[in-house]
């Protein structure tokens, strides 16, 4: 018999409605699973056992009285620790916000909470979402629940690890250059980076505002559709939120034996020259066969500007936006502060120099450098023009194809503590994820199976703007063939 922590979102919602188990039983089993794994995995910065149990009891009260229940009533969730939760510590993985409890909640948490989801904790992340290993967190690294000597990916590594290890059936992360899709791939689960504008960013601690997007991690595509149905709402508090209420994530058409007949799935010509770990290269070949068997046509698109310029363009824009966004952390209004500074400028310098970690400081300095009047036209403004070329290249490519099939990363997860001497080499490994953010596209990361060494092997589908539902529909068909992601041992 399955343990309660192994259930998905839909099964939990149905079980609570049908009184087969209570919301409190689900919460306590999930919390128990988290505690059994935390010693080795360290996915959480804060566990919210007391408030979560109180909320679960409240849901059980509604069930007992026969009152209406929200679509996610009693489902435990973990939020990345850059998503603001009123009265609950929200650190962004940084010392500078180490004790900060926001006076307001992010719209996504308001939506989930209103739908009945129960918060189990806030997850570890690279500091201010800057990193791809979960290793720049001021709270120490998170481990991959499939092999605790390896990284879970980042920056939303804690959220991905917690869903993979069975702490919760779903979690939220944020994706600025791959921070949902890459940890989803490393941890062997589903991760969606929605189209920029589909999910509100209000209350997300900003890194690169024109790139950041909140999205879910799940262990089934159906669960992801249920979550997106709740999250994809226009928000007047986010001026980049777009009203796409016509997209109905809960409706799926059944297509019989050839469900993808007529779909055109493309490979990127320029990416085929790059080296991939053999299990990832093999997964691409296997997926091509699966797509063809399901009736899809395999095509090719050419993205030369993306292949050569996207990494440089992304880091120029992300660093420039980060330096502006992180200027607000000064120790005066909230967060880490010092009491010994002689003057205001000394206070700012001391707070920021002690409060930020090395990677964050490097990117702030890079952003300051690129946006100085003497260099701005040459670098920052140039990057915004290159970004137009990149978005245009994608737009043209999607005139002829429905989606692109591509790797998420060139390699399987590395060992904790390993890093490139030259940071730019590490940045290059993000080539497959960050162009998606440059053009504001949706990207869906899915588990294709497991390598001989037992590590999950992920790939991603990338579509044109607002094609999120189509990507999930294709993902649903793929899941039938590939099987649902398994729950990782979590160091046990």
């Amino acid at each position, binding site marked *: 018999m399955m343990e309660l922590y192994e259930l998905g979102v839909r099964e939990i919602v149905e079980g609570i409605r049908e009184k087969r188990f209570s919301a409190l039983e689900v919460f306590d089993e999930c919390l128990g699973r988290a505690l059994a794994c935390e010693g080795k995995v360290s996915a959480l910065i804060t566990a919210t056992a007391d408030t979560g149990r109180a909320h679960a009891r409240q849901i059980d009260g509604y069930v007992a009285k026969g009152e209406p229940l929200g679509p996610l009533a009693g489902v435990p969730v973990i939020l990345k620790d850059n998503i603001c939760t009123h009265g609950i510590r929200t650190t962004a993985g940084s010392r500078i916000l180490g004790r900060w409890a926001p006076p307001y909640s992010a719209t996504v948490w308001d939506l989930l909470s209103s739908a009945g989801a129960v918060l189990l904790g806030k997850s570890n992340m690279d500091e201010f979402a800057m990193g791809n290993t979960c290793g720049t967190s001021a709270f120490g690294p998170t481990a991959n629940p499939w092999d605790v000597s390896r990284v879970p990916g980042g920056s939303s590594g804690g959220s991905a690890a917690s869903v993979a290890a069975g702490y919760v059936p779903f979690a939220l992360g944020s994706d600025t250059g791959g921070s949902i899709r890459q940890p989803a791939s490393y941890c062997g689960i589903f991760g969606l980076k929605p189209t920029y504008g589909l999910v509100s960013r209000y209350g997300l601690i900003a890194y690169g505002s024109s790139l950041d997007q909140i999205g879910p991690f799940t262990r089934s595509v159906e669960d992801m559709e249920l979550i997106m149905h709740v999250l994809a709402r226009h928000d007047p508090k986010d001026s*980049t939120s777009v009203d796409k209420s016509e997209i109905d994530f809960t409706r799926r058409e059944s297509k019989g034996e050839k469900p993808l007949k007529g779909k055109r799935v493309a490979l990127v010509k320029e990416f085929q020259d790059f080296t991939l770990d053999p299990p990832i290269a093999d997964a691409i070949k296997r997926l091509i066969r699966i797509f063809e068997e399901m009736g899809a046509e395999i095509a090719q698109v050419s993205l030369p500007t993306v292949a050569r310029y996207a990494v440089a363009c992304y880091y120029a824009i992300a660093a420039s936006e980060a330096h502006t966004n992180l200027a607000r952390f000064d120790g*005066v209004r909230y967060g880490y502060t010092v009491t010994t500074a002689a003057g*205001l400028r000394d206070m700012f310098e001391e707070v920021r120099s002690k409060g930020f970690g090395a990677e964050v400081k*490097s990117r702030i300095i890079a952003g*300051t*450098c690129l946006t100085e009047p003497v260099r701005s036209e*040459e670098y920052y403004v140039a990057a915004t023009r290159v970004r137009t070329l990149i978005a245009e290249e994608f737009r043209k490519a999607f005139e002829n194809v429905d989606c692109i099939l591509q790797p998420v990363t060139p390699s399987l997860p590395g060992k904790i503590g390993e890093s490139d001497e030259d940071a730019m080499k590490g940045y290059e490994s993000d080539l497959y994820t960050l162009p998606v953010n440059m053009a504001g596209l949706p990207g869906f990361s899915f588990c294709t199976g497991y390598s001989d060494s037992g590590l999950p092997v992920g790939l991603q589908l990338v579509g044109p703007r607002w094609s999120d539902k189509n990507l999930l529909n294709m993902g649903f068909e793929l899941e039938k063939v590939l099987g649902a992601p398994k729950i990782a041992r979590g160091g046990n």
Partner: protein
Amino acid sequence: MKLGSDDVRAIAAEARLSLTDTELAGAVRYINNFLDMVDRFKELDLKNVEPFCFAETNVCPLREDLPAAFTRSEEILADRADGTGAFFKVPRIMEE
């Protein structure tokens, strides 16, 4: 043009960051590698290319200009480093 230690220290100061000697050496290496990376843009002719903007956010969304009460001022004031009443107290602003 490569940036030296003095250049990087001045940029860091603009960002209100002070660096130890070890951090500074790392930052000089990092920023010069970063500039090498973004120098790639010079291969492109960008004269007639507009800066990027999402099609949907080209128009500024407007809503009714109505006052809305914010009831959590006390919580915000509770987070401040120093102060009394509704005021934030900061160290001396004018340099000696």
